[in-house]
């Protein structure tokens, strides 16, 4: 049964019964507070589960007069279910998977975690003020056809694709209900701001040298808060830790930091805040769409909320869109 309705009580109980299997993102919890049992483990962004702040990728040691290297298995990342909002799901499925599971080179550590992480997309029905998913081609009910999807509907919870009966049998959705749902979805989508024009990435790219970047970047203090909490930002650093025995670490890195592109020769292709802010906007709104066909921003708005100086990516993008005509 691909589509069903379950009561909030059953839903809450099913989750509470296996609460150690479930995790939830902070944003999703904010929206679904009333449907969920207390005490689920809350994480900031989905990426910290599958692409953690730091992890060892391989170890090395000097033993018996020779060096050895061996990979670090991510090992027992047991199957888990993560409740998250559509924007966050999109960040994982499109952007993170797109980068780390690209078919020519698959990141093994990422893959080991990702294959055991099942996403449960919670349809976003009270849309937070800070987000803007429709601008970047998403919507509050976005899911890829195969995801487990939940949405409050007429006092019950509408569930899609629950193949393992995680939330019980439920009752089937009849034709009229299905129609009501579809109409609602259409209405919801229509009420949101339209997406950025399809030629936005090209136009933005063409305006790489514009003076406006200086104005746009003045306020930014070049910390990495936005990039570290962004659900899509996947840039990382590899560094070596330890001398005779140690490991190579994969850690989050940020295009906001001067060292990100600093050459050993001390030349830096992105020497000031202007270039770094431009890189962040361009990477998300021009380079990734041009290269891979998806935006590097899912419009969740977390960077707007946490920015110490209220440097606002939505404002910037809308201003650029207006400026580019």
């Amino acid at each position: 049964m691909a589509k069903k309705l379950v009561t909030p009580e059953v839903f809450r109980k099913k989750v509470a019964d296996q609460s150690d299997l479930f995790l939830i993102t902070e944003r999703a919890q904010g929206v679904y507070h009333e449907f969920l049992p207390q005490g689920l483990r809350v994480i900031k962004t989905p990426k910290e589960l599958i692409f953690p702040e730091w992890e060892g990728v391989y170890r090395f040691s000097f033993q018996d007069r020779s060096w050895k290297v061996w990979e670090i298995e991510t090992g027992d990342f047991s199957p888990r279910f993560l409740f998250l909002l559509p924007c966050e799901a999109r960040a994982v499925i499109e952007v993170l998977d797109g980068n780390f599971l690209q078919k020519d080179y698959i990141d093994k550590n990422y893959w080991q975690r990702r294959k055991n992480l099942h996403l449960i997309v919670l349809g976003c029905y009270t849309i937070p003020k800070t987000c803007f998913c429709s601008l970047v081609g998403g919507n509050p009910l976005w899911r890829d056809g195969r995801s487990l999807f939940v949405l409050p509907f007429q006092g019950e919870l509408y569930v899609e694709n629950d193949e393992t009966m995680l939330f019980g049998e439920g009752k089937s959705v009849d034709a009229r209900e299905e129609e009501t749902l579809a109409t609602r979805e259409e209405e919801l989508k229509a009420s949101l701001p339209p997406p950025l024009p399809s030629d936005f990435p090209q136009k933005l790219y063409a305006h790489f040298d514009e003076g406006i970047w200086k104005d746009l970047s003045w306020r930014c203090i070049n910390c990495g808060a936005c990039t570290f909490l962004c659900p899509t930002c996947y840039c990382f650093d590899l560094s070596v830790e330890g001398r005779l025995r140690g490991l190579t670490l994969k850690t989050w890195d940020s295009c906001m930091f001067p060292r990100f592109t600093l050459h050993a020769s001390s030349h830096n292709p992105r020497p000031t805040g202007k270039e770094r802010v431009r890189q962040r906007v361009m990477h998300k709104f021009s380079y990734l769409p041009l290269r891979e066909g998806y935006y590097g921003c899912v419009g969740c708005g977390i960077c707007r909320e946490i920015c110490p100086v209220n440097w606002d990516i939505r404002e910037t993008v809308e201003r650029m869109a207006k400026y580019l005509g």
Partner: protein
Amino acid sequence: MYEEEIRALSVKLLDEVEGVIGYSWGTLPFRARPFLCQKKEDVTHLVFNHFCGSNLARYLLSGELKEKKIAILAKACDARAITVLIREGQVKRENLVIVGIPCYGMVDRKKLEERFGPLQPQDFEWHLDSLTFKGENLSIGPFLEATCQRCLHPNPPLYDHLIGQEVTYIPRKRWNNDALTKLDMVSREERWAFFAGEFEKCIRCYACRNSCPLCYCKECFAEMQRPYWLSGAATPSENLFFHVGRSLHMAGRCVECGACERACPVDIPIALLPCKVEELIRGNFDFEAGIDPDKEPPLLTYRENDPGEFIR
């Protein structure tokens, strides 16, 4: 607050300076943000209110403005930071027009949310040291940020123009709520449990460092390759190293503005560390940063009878 005065003064000042660094409303409610006003028609964006937390002195160091004549809006903390920057040779006094603003403290959005639930701007009216919520008048004290509640210097020590009237009381005495004392009271194990939890949260985004007006090192020890002090991994021990190292580097320089704490995206009360160091300096070396520009900073001087019992 003071908007008319600030705007009128800015129009005048723009005749002689390249720009006025001040605040404008942000893109989200209850947020003001740094704003560089370079045209007279833009002065209408300038505002001042209880959400103008960012320490503007930080912007004096950005390459573009460093050698230009600039006017800057300065709360007490900003003015103190500017004093330190001048003393350390980072900015030239003659390039600055300092517009001082006596400050009643900055409001912590989270404390408002705790008390009033989801916030609507239209429910609030703001006054110098009080607020009106749906007609009810309340003291501002309980809603101030932790660093503002323990503030000892509400009036700027250095300015060319002063907006409004000086604050006549010392906030720390009035609000009697020092975050440090609460921690001083508990046992060492409890304090460790608390800090260990906080260091666990840190993602080392360096928002604290980058929002600090006095963290201007060209290359921070945290990002140095040689010597390689720290890895990029945000593990609790490395985070502790970073924050302790930073606090000690700020010793005798920190003006306790709380910019670091305000900037933290994961809500670590990180100003506790540098503030503790300043408290130690205040008590033992009789010094406060950015108050008296002629007084020798505490780590550049000594007294023969400094505390030394801890040394065998």
